[in-house]
């Protein structure tokens, strides 16, 4: 009797030990695995072991010299609102691209037309100001519908209230294209 029980236990363990949690076998790992470091791997060389490195502090990638030199403070915001100029012109290509980017990066909170109603329904992201609102004064003493390109760009770059900074996710060009599209939404009738 004891043997039978042991046999059944052995069979159950054997069967239940099959799972797809291992990545499996591979031919010739020498050709499969890169000898050079892969983007998201680890190494023993840097103290934080990350293969993905940040650009060297104080350097600027070729072609990425910014025309927007305002810091993240309230003063920077107000100054940007007055002085920053969108280097990209308002044409159909830029607007089309801005619309596409808006759908990827803004729509889930700000809604399709910048009037709230996005797919995120968490309370923190439910009281979304409407882009075409012309009553409530924001921190620059202007209502949403009259915020300038500089204000919008500053908010995308450095974040505002519950909205985080999006500078790492969008290039400068993409941010300005979104600004162009948001300015169209500001003009939407209520």
């Amino acid at each position, binding site marked *: 009797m004891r043997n039978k029980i042991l046999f*059944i236990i052995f*069979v*159950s363990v054997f*069967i*239940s030990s*099959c799972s*797809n*949690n*291992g*990545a*499996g*076998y*591979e*031919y010739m790992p020498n*050709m*499969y*695995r*890169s*000898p050079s470091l892969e*983007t*998201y791997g680890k190494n023993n060389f840097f103290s*934080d*072991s*990350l293969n993905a490195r940040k650009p060297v502090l104080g350097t600027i990638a070729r072609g990425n010299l910014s025309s927007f030199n305002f810091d993240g*403070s*309230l003063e920077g915001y107000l100054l940007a609102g007055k002085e920053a100029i969108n280097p990209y012109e308002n044409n159909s290509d830029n607007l089309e691209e801005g619309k596409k980017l808006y*759908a*990827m*990066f803004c*729509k*889930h909170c700000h809604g399709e037309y910048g009037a709230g109603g*996005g*797919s*995120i*329904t*968490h*309370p*923190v*992201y*439910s*009281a*979304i*100001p409407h882009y075409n609102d012309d*009553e*409530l*004064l*924001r*921190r620059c*003493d202007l209502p949403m519908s009259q915020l300038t390109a500089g204000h919008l760009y500053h908010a995308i770059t450095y*974040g505002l*209230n*519950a*909205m*985080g*900074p*999006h500078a*790492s*996710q*969008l*290039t400068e060009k993409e941010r300005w294209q979104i600004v162009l599209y948001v300015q169209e939404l500001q003009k939407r009738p209520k």
Partner: protein
Amino acid sequence: MTINFRVYFRFIVLSVFYFASIFLYADNVENGEKIYKQNCTACHLMTKARLVGPGLEGVTEKYEKEWLIKWIRNSQALIASGDERAIAIFEEYDKSVMTSFDFSDEEFSDLLAYLANPPVEEVVVSSGVQTVENQGMSNSTILMIIALVLVTVVFLLVSVKNSLKTALGKETETVSQTLINKYKLFVSNNINVLFISAVGLIVGLKFVYDLLMGVGVTTNYQPAQPIAFSHEIHAGINGVDCNYCHTSARHSKHSGIPSANVCMNCHTYISEGSKYGTKEIAKIYEAVGFDPDSRQYIEGYEQKPIEWVRIHNLPDHAYFNHSQHVVAGGLECQECHGPVEEMEVLYQYSELTMGWCIECHRETEVKMEGNNYYTHLHDQLKEKYKGKPITVDMIGGIECGKCHY
């Protein structure tokens, strides 16, 4: 009699007054709640906890009504007038400017009534365990149960046979003896042995073939990740676009794993998830050094990388570029990665074998609209193939050197 009547009258008047006040008061609070939810929740919680601005529990006791109205109407004017408390709170919250809300007097009294008497939140019993759907038994469990049933049947039959034999006064035999006898009888016939060997050989070859074909193919690979991140919640229910987090898919070879600052875009203010509570989100805070109570980053904190387990992995000798497929090719992420927005735990959907790549390149037509960069080439192709569908292999999509160099 008159006394009685007076008492009744008083009682009626008082009760009418009392109920009326309850109804009026309820109306106020309800309207106040509406105003609160439309305008305030982006920066304030109804508890003591800090969000962008301070938690609002007990705010009506801390400040008098007139002061609060002045502050909400135009906090900057109040600060400029030199009000000490206003300046103190402005400094405490890193000089973030509160939007000016020009509500009417009535709206203000409704809002403040709500702030003074927020309804007690109903404690919703977490249904986390119940929501996990019973996904039925796996194949191996079913097989195991069948095997157990068969074994039991063998034992039962043998014991029935034995009891019949004892009834007839014949010699009984144990299960193993029965099996051995049957086996000997079976093996004594050569055709039986030949047949079994042939079947065994075919099954064995098929097994070895599948094993070899499966080397390097990791479809359905679903490792446990260091943080129980749910694509179903983020991309499915919350509808966040894939590109929001995997931004580099449009710009580079890799579709990058988002760095923790992208998580923090929302999770600075959302520290409790719908499925795992604070447990999993706390792991992001642990990695970046963020204190959810003060909602501040801890100074001088040594940040730790989150070690996600890689699922999709091409061999080093095959080149693949995401931006080429996403931007120029205009593919949806789901075409290769499957219904990610329905995956609670991510798994590899496609085979990622060379056959799989080539099959797609043979079937997929080249997207020519809205691709100005290649207009000249596209015109030439249209000229050459005259109305035939132009698939990726016709523009070199199956040349060896395109992927192996």
